């Protein structure tokens, strides 16, 4: 048994960490926070140059043909620095959707461009501040034309195309929707920024009025396909979350060691020590579940749905706890705009929601365990 990343993968990690430390300090993230730009284009160009956008794309489609374990390594490092780039939208979601459901022609058309960073993709399911359900889904495609409003669409102002979930049947239920590829620079598309709790990642409201839409996967397979895409993204995001939680814990530790009150470092108070111990425990549980998810994803295990839900639940919990209690450890400074604590807090809650909330994933997990148990 070997439950660790390989030497090559760890070397990739070191390179990524070095690159990101140089190119993505929190000052870069703060530029996006302050609205100086929508995203860090220069950082993205560097990422593309390193080939990260094509890490898990087969060589036949212009990728590096490495695997998902390498992608997990990169995700953790990107999460550690809160990289303000559309990596998750384009790589974990759009690319994975194409790998999973694309026809040969679609793969040929899109994957090389995605790998080369010539296009950026995203995935558009939500339609407002509520759970998208088979009853509520309003966007619809008829005769190859999409009508509807999607929000929040991650990186919606940045992406060139979106994989969009839309209704293709008037019935509710599991086969009511399908996935479509839509050119966001094409006709019938209007985009507008939407404010979220984390301004360091762009989100948009996208209005479609008769926008040309090309089916991705079979008719009626929208819910099933998006679930499968989200499982893959859940594992990759869990590494971003673990990375973010690790930084938040490191920050809390460093601050507690250097901050003195009552003549001693606050790190000598059990209230602080035990808080950080709890953060560490949650992080370890998150990391270990993420590792199992990585194994399931990379090995094509039938256990992926369960493993992905486990990774998502544990990593979401770990990051939110670490980010929240990092603020608390920082005391008054922690809730100022000037300190970086809030950047991690914002991101932790954003990531905990972006492909569905924890209660949703817990429900999924138990359904899947019931199904496994019944099988």
């Amino acid at each position, binding site marked *: 048994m070997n439950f660790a990343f390989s030497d090559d993968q760890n070397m990739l990690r070191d390179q990524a960490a070095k690159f990101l430390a140089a190119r993505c300090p929190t000052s870069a993230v703060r530029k996006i926070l302050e609205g100086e730009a929508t995203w860090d284009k220069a950082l993205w160009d560097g990422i593309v140059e390193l080939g990260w956008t094509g890490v898990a794309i087969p060589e036949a489609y212009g990728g590096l043909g490495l695997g998902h374990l390498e992608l997990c390594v990169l995700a953790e490092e990107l999460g550690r620095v809160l990289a303000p780039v559309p990596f998750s939208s384009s790589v974990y979601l759009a690319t994975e959707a194409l790998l999973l459901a694309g026809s040969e022609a679609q793969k040929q058309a899109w994957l090389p461009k995605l790998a080369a960073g010539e296009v950026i993709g995203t995935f558009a399911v939500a339609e407002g501040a509520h759970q998208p359900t088979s009853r509520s889904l309003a966007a619809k495609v008829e005769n190859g034309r999409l009508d509807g409003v999607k929000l929040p669409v991650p990186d919606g102002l940045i992406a060139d195309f979106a994989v969009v979930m839309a209704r293709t049947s008037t019935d509710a239920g599991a086969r009511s929707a399908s996935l479509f590829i839509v050119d966001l620079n094409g006709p019938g598309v209007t985009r507008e920024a939407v404010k979220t709790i984390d301004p360091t990642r762009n989100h948009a409201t996208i209005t479609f009025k008769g926008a040309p839409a090309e089916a991705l996967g079979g008719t009626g397979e929208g819910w099933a396909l998006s679930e499968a895409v989200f499982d893959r993204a859940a594992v990759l995001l869990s590494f971003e979350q673990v990375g973010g939680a690790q930084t938040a814990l490191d920050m809390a530790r460093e601050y507690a060691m250097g901050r003195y009150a009552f003549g001693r470092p606050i790190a000598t108070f059990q209230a602080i020590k035990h808080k950080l111990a709890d953060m560490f425990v949650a992080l370890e549980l998150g990391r270990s579940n993420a590792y199992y998810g990585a194994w399931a994803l990379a090995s094509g295990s039938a256990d992926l749905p369960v493993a992905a839900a486990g990774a998502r639940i544990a990593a979401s919990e770990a990051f939110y706890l670490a980010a929240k209690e990092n603020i608390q450890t920082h005391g008054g400074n922690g809730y100022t705009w000037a300190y970086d604590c809030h950047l991690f807090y914002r991101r932790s809650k954003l990531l905990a929601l972006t492909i569905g*909330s924890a209660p949703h994933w817990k429900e999924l997990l138990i359904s899947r365990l019931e199904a496994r148990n019944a099988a």
Partner: protein
Amino acid sequence: MDFEDTPEEAAFRAEARAWLEANAPSPEDARKMGRETTNEAESLKRAKAWQAKKADSNWACLHWPKEFGGRGATPIQRVIWEQEESRFAVPRGFFEIGLGMCGPTMMNWSTDAQKQRYLPKMLRGEEIWCQLFSEPSAGSDVAGLRTRCERDGDDWIINGQKVWTSGAHYSDFGIIVTRSDPTVPKHKGLTFFFIDMKSPGVEVRPIKQISGTSNFNEVYFTDVRVPDSQRLGKIGQGWEVSVSVLMNERLAVGDAPGPGFDEAFALAREVELESGPAIRDSNVRQKLADWYVQSRGLKYTKFRTITALSRGAVPGPEASITKLVSATNLQNIASFGMDLQDMGGSILDPEVAPANAIFQQALLYSPGLRIAGGTDEILRNIISERVLGMPGDIRVDKDVPYNKLPTGKA
């Protein structure tokens, strides 16, 4: 046990209600008196006018003694007034620190002449006061403060920085604790003053919080000159004065503002999940039940406190319980409300998110409520030490000269 007014209480309530009904501003005007409006100067003007009006009829500050224009009211009378006044939603934010903390401090520690000079104007809202205690390196450990005062003839020269000063930018005066002698243990070398906030060398800068708003300031002191006549208490007695002020702070802290059980209940009734209405989801229902019971527990604890106060008891640590429970619950409710909104829960736009995005906003400001006015950790210390009588934390700084204490880098 009885929730009805006694005859005396009923009479007082009728009097308060009659005056308010005759004099209170319209809801629209009341809104324009808040601290958090876009036009602060206009709000301030209106709020001052309302405060003066209250003062004219002896409703400006019920708990102050009559000799300073208060009403010497009982705790029950204060509660009744608050209940009646709250029906008109008139903000009191501009004057709370002055009337709640600075006024009592002046009553206890200043000269008769000073009381005559400052208290009436404070009461009428003609002059606004702030409190200057916390420093960047002295938060929970207030006595670790660094701001220096040095004697210069009949004056003192103050240098240093205060932080988390609410209302410093519109305040006329402030109470401040400073270090006069760094060579003695830290609690012993402090001296307390009140100062004119318009003095040369006082600079006020807003602090931006996570939520994006700036409810607090940093205040910098560069060679600020204060006459010795504005010293409150003896030289070196500053900690004793500060403690008397902080006792008043604990009383003032109330429930965390923002979404509570009612808002979470309403959201659950509004939101649809794949399984159906969220309010039918038993996980949602169990959480709602917990929050209901906790919020009611706080409410009834307050009733018990008021009853005890009205029988002559000394204020206890109940405010610590309220703040500890309600700030934590607020953060949890905010997060829960966003989870109910699932993928779209991150939307902060009040035009889009349910309930004008109060859950999202609360997620951003609730961390501050777990810190300001005493962190969760300090509150638990207070409860264990002052209520349960457990010993204090081991003190390594008690007998060490202030300037020999380790300070770290943060």
